[in-house]
């Protein structure tokens, strides 16, 4: 790692960007600060993501840059030509945030891990993962619905079910259809084979609002054999936690393969996959054919990719001989992303999942009929990948989307903002191949933290288009990848 090279690269880039504001001195057009800082921000984020630079150094550099730009801005420089994101008051200094970025202002989006306020043990401890696949009905005088249990997980952080629920609309003669809101999970009763009683605490984890997990309170013993769950006056549904039965329902043993990605290559892989999974952020009409539309709607996303690659090389976290920049260039070409500045020619040897997704986008008549709403009970722990342990706790099709319920341990609570919207807090590449041979990228959708563990959902891009009989899960980090095939048994909502 060449930290000095990384810092010098970032500073020189800032210096080059600053030449824009020196318009009178250089008699050249300048588009304003908004456009000129996109490359700088992307490089800064990339260098912090690979830990070539620390936050403080980068924030100092950017603060100085912001001040340098501000003291060079005058009203007459903004009277012609396009103006960037910020427009100063005429004749006055525009005060940038500068050093105030050091105030550790934090952003918390709904897609990144959020921590509960409960204290608890750290990651680790014995795991008990059981696929469930049972429905617990609820009905009273004003509400009816079901809780569908996908999987049970008892880890160091506690015991929980991943689940999806639904309520049924009533018709009010005066006000029309009425949606009745959430199931009252607090009214469900849970008992174990020893007579222990528990309450259910619901927590959303992003994605569809009717999916999440319910925790058992208090935490049950490790060796209970079953749990009986029922709504008031409803049938008792027994959840068998027998580990033998659970193993029988699981798939093959995961296979682990060593890979050797440098930090820079890993970041570029995440960047490529970010491009490949950007579809959900576009209107539905555009999603399916992003790569077939002219002009490409993604071209503005790519500003600074070439600079990021050069910066990673300057930091010695990316070899100039690496094939990954060429693969990223190929993804850009396939997605009709221009203006990226990548000098490597597009590579031919793209990973099979990337090719599958590109083919999906380039299909002129892609599948447009979503699969029927349902879920598959899955409960599988993947081997540790670069310090991160993932457990898969259910696959859900609903509302035109597909979601993989995941329990994560070893994820960092504080991360840098990745360039180009990369989810740096989830530095694992996860793909699913369905029984029809199509690959689906799994992008982090939303998380909540519970006692040091993260429960969340990965959104499949594209969604499943059929109730696949099995899936192959491919998860990869910088030093290893895991493959596991899981049979699925679907239950419909």
């Amino acid at each position: 790692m060449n930290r000095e090279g990384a810092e010098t690269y970032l500073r020189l880039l800032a210096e080059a960007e600053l030449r824009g504001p020196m318009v009178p001195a250089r008699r050249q057009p300048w588009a304003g600060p908004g456009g000129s800082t996109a490359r700088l921000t992307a490089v800064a984020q990339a260098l912090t993501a690979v830990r070539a630079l620390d936050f403080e150094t980068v924030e100092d550099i950017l603060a100085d840059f912001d001040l340098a730009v501000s003291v060079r801005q005058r009203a007459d420089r903004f009277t012609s030509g396009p103006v960037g994101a910020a427009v100063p008051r005429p004749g006055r200094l525009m005060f940038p945030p500068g050093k105030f970025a050091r105030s550790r202002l934090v952003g918390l989006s709904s897609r990144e891990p959020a921590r509960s306020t409960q204290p608890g043990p750290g990651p680790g401890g014995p795991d008990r993962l059981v696929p469930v696949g049972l429905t617990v009905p609820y009905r009273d005088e004003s509400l009816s619905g079901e809780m569908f249990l996908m999987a049970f997980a008892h880890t160091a952080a506690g015991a929980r079910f991943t689940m999806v629920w639904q309520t049924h609309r009533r018709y009010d003669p005066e006000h029309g259809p009425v949606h009745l809101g959430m199931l009252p999970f607090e009214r469900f009763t849970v008992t174990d084979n020893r007579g222990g009683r528990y309450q259910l605490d619901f927590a959303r984890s992003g994605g569809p609002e009717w999916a999440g997990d319910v925790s058992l309170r208090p935490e049950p013993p490790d060796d209970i054999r079953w749990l009986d769950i029922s709504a008031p006056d409803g049938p008792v549904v027994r959840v068998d936690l027998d580990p033998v039965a659970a193993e029988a329902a699981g798939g093959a043993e995961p296979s682990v393969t060593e890979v050797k990605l440098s930090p820079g290559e890993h970041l570029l892989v995440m960047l490529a996959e970010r491009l490949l999974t950007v579809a959900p952020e576009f209107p539905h009409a555009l999603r399916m054919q992003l790569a077939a539309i002219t002009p490409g709607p993604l071209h503005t996303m790519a500003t600074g990719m070439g600079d990021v690659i050069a910066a990673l090389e300057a930091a010695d976290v990316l070899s100039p001989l690496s094939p990954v920049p060429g693969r990223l260039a190929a993804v850009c070409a396939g997605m009709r992303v221009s203006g990226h500045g990548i000098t490597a020619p597009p590579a031919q040897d793209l990973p099979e999942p990337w090719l599958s997704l590109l083919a999906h986008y380039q299909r002129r008549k892609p599948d447009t009929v979503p699969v029927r709403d349902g879920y598959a009970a899955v409960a599988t722990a993947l081997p540790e990948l670069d310090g991160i342990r993932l457990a898969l706790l259910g696959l859900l099709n609903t509302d035109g989307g597909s979601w993989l319920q995941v329990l994560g341990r070893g994820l960092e609570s504080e991360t840098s903002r990745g360039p180009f919207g990369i989810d740096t807090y989830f530095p694992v590449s996860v793909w699913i191949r369905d029984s029809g041979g199509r690959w689906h990228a799994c992008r982090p959708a939303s998380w909540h933290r519970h006692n040091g563990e993260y429960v969340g959902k990965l959104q499949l891009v594209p969604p499943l288009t059929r109730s696949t009989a099995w899936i192959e899960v491919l998860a990869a980090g910088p030093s290893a990848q895991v493959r596991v095939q899981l049979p699925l048994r679907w239950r419909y909502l």
Partner: protein
Amino acid sequence: MTDTRNDPWYSCLPSCETQVPCGQGRHIVRWEAGQLRLPEHPDAEAEFVLAALGGGKAGCVVLAEAWGRHTSDLSVLAVGPRGSADEIVVSWQDVEEAAQAGQRGGAVAFSRVRRAPLRRLASPPAPAAGHSARQRQVQAEQERAAERWKDLLSLLALGYGFSVRLAGQVAAAHADSPDATARPALATAVTGRLALVAEQWLGIDPDEVDEVSWHDGPGWGRVELTGTGGERRLRVSLPASWLARVWACGLALIGGHLVVAVDRAGWPDARVLALRAPGAEPVLVDVHAREYDGLDGAAGTPDWEL
């Protein structure tokens, strides 16, 4: 070539002065022989002591303190002027408004072009006790940032002449043995300034100037132009002292020559080692400073001629 390393870096720089707000009026502030002087505060040392004990500070004293805090601050090089044509306009009204904004609310007051934070914390606000400690920490950082901001603005408000002299002082402070923490900022400062000089010298795009490398050892370094068209690059290796001894003294480009070193320092006459073209052998030339009105800080550095 004469060894000038023992000469002060500013030997080719005359004094300069300007007026700054102080109390109800304006006072002269002067830079002379590497020092900032307050001629209208003859017992400035006593005023510093009084201020340290909680007494009121005169505007000139506040400014001198700010100068002292930044004589080795590499941010001065990142923010300050790259050349006489690099127009920076900061008025004393701007400084006052920045100070008031900092007192009102720090970051909130400076929020016009807020950049998204690089760091994100995967947690909601902590419980009350931790939250208030965090708030205090943030508040303290904001106050320090506001003070630093005001410092830099007030130093820029002194005008180009003072800014370039402060830059020279900062560069000189790090030039003898730049460590790993200073090298990136110094290399960038030299490269950025040399790129603009090269644009004037050769008519090339500043982006075609590679990062300047440090020349350490006998001789003056190297300047060569390689490639053609889009592949053209200017590769330069110079001593770390170039920024202070040459550029800050206004000697970088004289009569179509790139000055790479000072052979005999002095003002208004000096002898420099200069290049007519990349790859050529440098020659010693005598240079003379045209008439210079140092009474206005904006006047900057002397205008040298062969």
